[in-house]
């Protein structure tokens, strides 16, 4: 058997977490009198997450871009026909790389801003990383479900322990919303396993469920993925969770956890329930367009920077569902691209908010203004990501939005028109945000002494900036990787 590289990538963070905990237990707690902790533990955490990133690069190199189907497959019997089966295609490969890139960035961003219970913080992030990678690798429904659900606990703890004032409420809301959706999916998984006699994703793609059953199964999966994505009207947990989460938590939440919903649609809903997917296309289009327009308008009225970006995430994820359910190559490719691009951009925007929050301890837009006079580098980077979020040509945000709209246009003109409205609104709220925080005269005396981005923050932001511009100019880098998997999903639909 070959070296199980997928399991290695998945479980290195977990091993690191256990190691850190053991070392801490053996050396005793090093908590200083003021409640802070030795900061070296962060570097240990960063080391493990960087090791995971390196490992995922190795995985990328051993992945055959021209190959079809799932690669690097690992299979071990778990119990009664359910296998621990891992394997990736182009789409999961990209999302894994995004995960392994964003985790070290989220950890680096926490240096200095997280002071209490640092070890637990690092351990939670590493455990979370394992579960996130596992979600994208799993090729067995039950294994997928386990990873999908398990990620809730570390995120629950991250929001609940290191979050803002209302962290407890936000963490409970986050947890219970997601759990309710997921349990319907669990019931569907059990049904599929019993009907098809297997929970292997590859075999389930070939299995044809009866049309009536497909409707119910699709709805059960939709309940879970729609909450996770999140789609209107079940998005209300997201602004709360984002606002209360620490910066690192927001980066992971927006960057990766939201992508699990889109991933789930492409991996399961489309190939396994093609008839139901077609049946529900108008429904998904409707709520996607509502999400795009409504969330954009809500974002416009926000006074809290994080909340604004959270609502902008809801709007941008609307493009993802629009693209996926257009059932065209443009749409699906665009949706995957949009997921990646949104992961980079929204992650960066939350970091940008974190930079000033660490200095001023407020996220109120009105507390800022005139930042450009004191923080020129910051203003430049902020401008770049603002433009990317608006979808300016030359940034990755543009490619995702234009392709999903082209795809949607082929399926429904009205949906595309509605979505285009969202693009305009996104310019409105993002530019308003930028203008009110960065431009103008300095009104708040505290801003007079604020300092520009430091090295740590640059290390976090620069890779994301490079990615945003690079993929905006050369989107084919991504499309070459994802073409096979999007064609595969569409072929399953047509053939199924």
């Amino acid at each position: 058997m070959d070296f199980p590289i997928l399991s290695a990538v998945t479980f290195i963070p977990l091993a690191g977490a256990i190691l850190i905990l053991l070392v801490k237990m053996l050396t005793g707690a090093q908590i200083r009198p003021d409640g802070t902790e030795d900061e070296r533990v962060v570097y240990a955490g960063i080391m493990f997450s960087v090791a995971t990133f390196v490992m995922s690069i190795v995985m990328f190199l051993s992945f055959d871009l021209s190959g079809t189907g799932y690669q690097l497959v690992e299979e071990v019997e778990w119990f009664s026909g359910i296998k621990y089966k891992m394997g990736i295609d182009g789409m999961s490969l990209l999302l894994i790389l995004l995960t392994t890139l964003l985790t070290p960035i989220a950890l680096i961003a926490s240096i200095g801003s997280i002071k209490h219970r640092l070890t637990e913080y690092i351990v939670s992030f590493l455990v979370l990383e394992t579960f996130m990678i596992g979600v994208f690798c799993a090729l067995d429904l039950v294994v997928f479900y386990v990873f999908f659900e398990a990620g809730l606990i570390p995120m629950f703890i991250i929001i609940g322990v290191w979050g803002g004032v209302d962290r407890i409420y936000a963490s409970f809301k986050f947890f219970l919303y997601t759990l309710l959706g997921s349990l319907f999916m669990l019931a569907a998984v059990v049904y599929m396993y019993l009907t098809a006699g297997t929970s292997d994703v590859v075999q389930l793609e070939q299995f044809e469920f009866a049309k009536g059953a497909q409707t119910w199964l699709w709805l059960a999966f939709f309940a879970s993925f729609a909450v996770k994505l999140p789609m209107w009207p079940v998005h209300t947990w997201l602004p709360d969770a984002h606002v209360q989460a620490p910066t690192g938590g927001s980066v992971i939440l927006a960057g990766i956890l939201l992508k699990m919903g889109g991933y789930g649609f492409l991996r399961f809903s489309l190939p396994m329930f093609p008839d139901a997917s077609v049946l529900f296309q108008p429904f998904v289009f409707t709520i996607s367009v509502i999400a795009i327009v409504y969330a954009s308008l809500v974002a416009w009225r926000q006074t809290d920077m994080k909340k604004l970006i959270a609502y902008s995430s809801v709007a941008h994820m609307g493009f993802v569902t629009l693209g996926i359910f257009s059932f065209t190559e443009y749409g699906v490719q665009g949706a995957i691209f949009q997921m990646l691009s949104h992961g980079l951009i929204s992650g960066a925007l939350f970091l940008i908010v974190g930079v000033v929050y660490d200095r001023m301890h407020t996220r109120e837009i009105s507390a800022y203004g005139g930042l450009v006079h004191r923080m020129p580098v910051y203003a430049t980077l902020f401008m770049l990501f603002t433009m990317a979020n608006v979808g300016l040509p030359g940034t990755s945000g543009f490619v995702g939005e234009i392709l999903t709209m082209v795809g949607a246009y082929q399926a429904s003109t009205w949906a595309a028109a509605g979505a285009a409205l969202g693009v305009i609104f996104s310019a409105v709220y993002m530019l308003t945000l930028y203008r009110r925080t960065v431009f103008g005269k300095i009104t708040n005396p505290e801003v007079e002494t604020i300092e520009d981005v430091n090295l740590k923050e640059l290390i976090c932001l620069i890779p994301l900036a490079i990615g945003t511009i690079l993929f905006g100019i050369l989107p084919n880098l991504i499309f070459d990787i994802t073409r096979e998997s999007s064609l595969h999903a569409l072929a399953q639909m047509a053939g199924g």
Partner: protein
Amino acid sequence: MFDLEAILNTIAPELLLAAAGLLGVTIGALIGDRFNSLSFKVGALVLFAAAALAVLYWPGGRAFDGLVETSSFANFAKVVSFICAGITLLMAEGFLRQHDTLRYEYSLLVIFAALGMGIILSSSNFMTLYLGIETLSLSSYVLASFHRDSPRSAEAGLKYFVLGALASGLLLYGMSLVYGFSGSTSYEVVAEAEASIGFMFGMVLMITGLAFKVSAAPMHVWTPDVYEGSPSPVVAFFATAPKMASMVVFAIVMFTAFPQAMAFENWQVIIGIIAAASMLIGAFGALPQANLKRLLGYSSIANMGYALVAVAAGVQYGAGSLLIFMTAYVIASLGLFGGVLSMRREGGMVENIDELAGLIRRQPGLATALTVLLVSVSGFPLAFGFLGKLAVLEAGWTAGLMPLIIILVISSVIAMYYYLRIVKIMWFDEQTADFEPVDFWVTGTVYVTALVSVALLIFVSPFSELAASVAAGLVS
């Protein structure tokens, strides 16, 4: 007539328990208080030995003209119950010493209760069933009021006794009706009898009596009160060993004594309703609770509801699932009840949930292990409890019990809320008072059960195959 081998095959562990219990009474009478401390360790050893005997004489047999018969299904439950009883005994010593009630009678009562569990699991006749249930129940009543100087403990014992006696009466009345209409008390003969109206009546009364023993709604009302009043180690015992044994006996009685198509149709509906009511009452009842023991009481009611879904699924689909679910539940409960309930802080025992605040800072290892156990009990996919719930879902689905599946899903979400609340208090809230170190055996149990819960999630294959083969034995 006197076939020693058959007898040993069938009730070897019970013989050991009976002998050890009687010997213990004698030794206690002779040396009195000097036996107090020793009896706990020896008692646990005897219980573990009984579990070993059950394994040794696998897969069981039949003796005394069919009065007792041990299937491998029953043997499985015996092994788990005896081990649980032994561990609760080990955990009890420290607690009882602190409260100045370390008396050898405690271990003897647990041994006699285990004897009762063994007998009901081995019975294939209503008479032995009743004898076993009474042995178990009478020991339990006394255990509930073991802190005889505490009015709450005495109240718990009395309440348990009065209600338990009523339930036993119903059970006995049901048995007599079934006997009257079928002409026999043997499961085999009853299974062949025609399911007339009177017969059904008897069956329903028996279900009511058995539902009391597993604390299923609507016969659940005693549970929170008795849990609240009883000494903590007794609660840990009640929630594990007897629950495992009674639930499996419930299933055995339904599966082997009432398999007729008409009877099955009826008891499936009745048990389905009981299961639904237990799940909902357990989930909603726990929500407003501030007292830890009451909350855990409601949680066990809800979990019994889940187990009853597997029973309602019938022998073919439900038997294996029931074993997986119950084993997952008792493993997690053992550590959870034992750990949470023996927590002490300045000024006494932890009684309310709020008093667990900030445990993570004082004892991070213990708090993490308890979190794993809570996760397992709630059926969340990070521990073995998830596979238990998955098995029940699977059983319910194959048997076509759609409404039960939906209620199961909804009540799981509600239940998740109050389990999470405990996690939240342990992890997020500010510590209000200092915790005292926890007894060695309790800490050990918490860690071991947490580890086993996670390990069995990953290496479940041999276990689930065993459960399936054991269940298959019951079908044929």
